[in-house]
């Protein structure tokens, strides 16, 4: 089942309360994109204000197309993409957008500093301003001391930082980052996450596409899930979970007598329980497949009190963005 966001839904049109920006920076209006006979994006509609928004989806879900449309690298077949009211494909809209692509094809003969200066000049900065701004962003991404090396000698993490730096050069209101944490070591990742947070705190809007769902969950509570060219859902992972009450959830419960607990759970008083499995190799573990988790959790809490059960462990096994995505993709999606 694919949940669709309708164009008239008030909830998506309302800017998130944490946003310091009042208007939609980026706006998709009934956007569809065909590549020949292939429908890459299907009637996508969403506004983006300030703060960090995550973009997740399986391969072929339309993530890259959505990002290219937002940056103005491709035009929609139907619909409209605007950045502060300006057509995203217009060069003037590019003044407001910083784009960090997932691939890192540079002029390898250039140093990081020379590359950034060229990029700054492409942004319309004078030579002096380009030099000043280059130093500022190099400092920002922690590359000042390594910027004179040729790009071909950079590690994956350094290349990610340079890509981020070139996106920050013109101080855009909207940053679109495609897999910005890929290949970055844990320390560098934490540093970049801090940079993202500070940019969001400074009023920037960040649209971050990532396969690192756990990282994204920690970074933002606003996640757009794309599936088969449509926005399957938007919100925090837990909100999405709430809307997915009818999707099964597996819970691990460790008790001294799991067989007895299974009998209780499969009785009529727990209609939410679909089935129980004993975990091989662990005589105390019981895997319970349920629907409507909130109702089940409340009922199970009562059962624990009434039966004085000794519960050593109670853990939803798939309460993560991966699982949500899996449900949305009908179990076929890979992340």
């Amino acid at each position, binding site marked *: 089942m694919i949940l669709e966001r309708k164009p008239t839904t008030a909830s998506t049109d309302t800017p998130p309360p944490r946003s310091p920006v009042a208007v939609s920076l980026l706006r998709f209006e009934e956007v569809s994109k065909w590549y020949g006979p292939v429908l890459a994006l299907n009637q996508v509609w969403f506004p983006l204000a300030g703060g960090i928004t995550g973009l997740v989806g399986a391969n072929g879900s339309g993530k890259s197309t959505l990002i*290219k449309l937002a*940056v*103005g*690298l*491709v*035009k929609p077949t139907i619909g409209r993409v605007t950045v502060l009211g300006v057509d995203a*494909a*217009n*060069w*003037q809209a*590019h*003044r407001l*957008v910083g*784009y960090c*692509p997932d*691939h890192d*094809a*540079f*002029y390898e*003969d*250039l140093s990081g500093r*020379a590359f950034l200066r*060229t*990029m700054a*000049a*492409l*942004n*319309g*900065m*004078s030579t002096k*301003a380009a030099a000043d*701004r280059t130093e*500022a962003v190099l*400092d*920002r991404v922690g590359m000042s001391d390594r910027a004179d090396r040729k790009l071909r000698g950079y590690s994956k993490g350094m290349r990610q930082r340079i890509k981020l730096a*070139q996106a920050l*050069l*013109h*101080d855009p209101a909207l940053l679109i980052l495609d897999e910005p944490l890929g290949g970055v070591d844990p320390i560098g990742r934490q540093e970049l996450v*801090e*940079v993202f*947070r*500070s*940019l969001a*705190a*400074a009023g920037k809007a960040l649209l971050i596409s990532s396969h690192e769902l756990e990282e994204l969950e920690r970074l933002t509570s606003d996640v757009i899930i794309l599936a088969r060219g449509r926005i399957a859902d938007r919100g925090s992972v837990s909100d999405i979970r709430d809307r997915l009450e009818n999707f099964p959830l597996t819970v691990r419960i460790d008790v001294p007598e799991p067989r007895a607990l299974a009998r209780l759970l499969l009785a009529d008083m727990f209609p939410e329980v679909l089935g129980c499995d004993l975990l091989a190799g662990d005589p105390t573990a019981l895997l319970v497949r349920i629907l409507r988790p909130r109702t089940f959790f409340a009922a199970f809490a009562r059962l624990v009190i009434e039966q004085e059960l000794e519960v050593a462990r109670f853990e939803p096994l798939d309460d993560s963005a991966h699982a949500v995505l899996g449900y949305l993709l009908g179990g076929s999606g890979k992340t």
Partner: protein
Amino acid sequence: MTPTDALLRYRPWTGEFRPPICASWAMARSSLRLMMRRKLFWALYALAALIFFFFFYGQYLVVWIQLQTANQSVPVLGINVRIGDFLKFLDRLNLNGSAHTFGNFIWFQGYISTIVLAMAGAVLIGNDFHHGSLPFYLAKPIDKRHYLLGKILGIGLFVNLLTTLPALILYFQAGLLYDWQTYYFEHLRELVGILAYGLLLTCSLGLLLTATAVWVKRTVPLIMIWAGLFVLCRMLGNFLVDGQRFDERWRLIDLWNDLYLVGLWCLGADPITDRAGPQPQPWEALLVIVAVGLLSAAFLRNRIQGVEVVS
């Protein structure tokens, strides 16, 4: 500024942006810098410098011989040869500040620049498409016109540094060697011709290189295509016209010859006096060049449709 920003030394940009046309200039400078970084190309630049100095000192030598030592003789292999006889040899090279001097010079220098461009095309343009770095550029506040302009401007800068600029130096040198008070006025057509020839090379080679580099993307196929265009087509044209006595219009398939014919026409020189065999009319050559340019432009338009990155 938030405390976090202060901590991370965040400095928002508050300056003024220049129009996107300036980005084309930045792209051109970047292209030029890339070509200058390749050590392999410096051998060709040295060859170009040799050609320039040959013309530069050749012009000087001709004038010096005429003025100072025309009646003297020097021993060559034990035989006394009048220095004036050297002039007959040098006259064939047209080292006399005439239209043919500049035409020949640009012909030779143009070949060097064409070889370098064939080798540099993949680095300058092909890689943007082959490795997918085009989004870096098109995501900046420019559109595809500025991108193409920047690339063609970069190619033009390089071509003119090797052809037009030294040709202008030769022109001013000729004026100083002869009578500068009359030379510059009497040879104004040559000055305009040098500039027009440079513009012609810039536009035609710029569009052609961009189109072929976008098409084949890699160095070896690009060199093969350019070798086909500028060497094989030239040989075929000569074979058909000189060998098989076909109509001289068959020589129009030789694009380099077409550029030369139009260049000589711009310089005000008669191509018949300089070229062996029958030649097509300059306007016919111009038509071919315009057609090639339009085809290249149409191809580029389709390849980078709107702002769409097709790779």
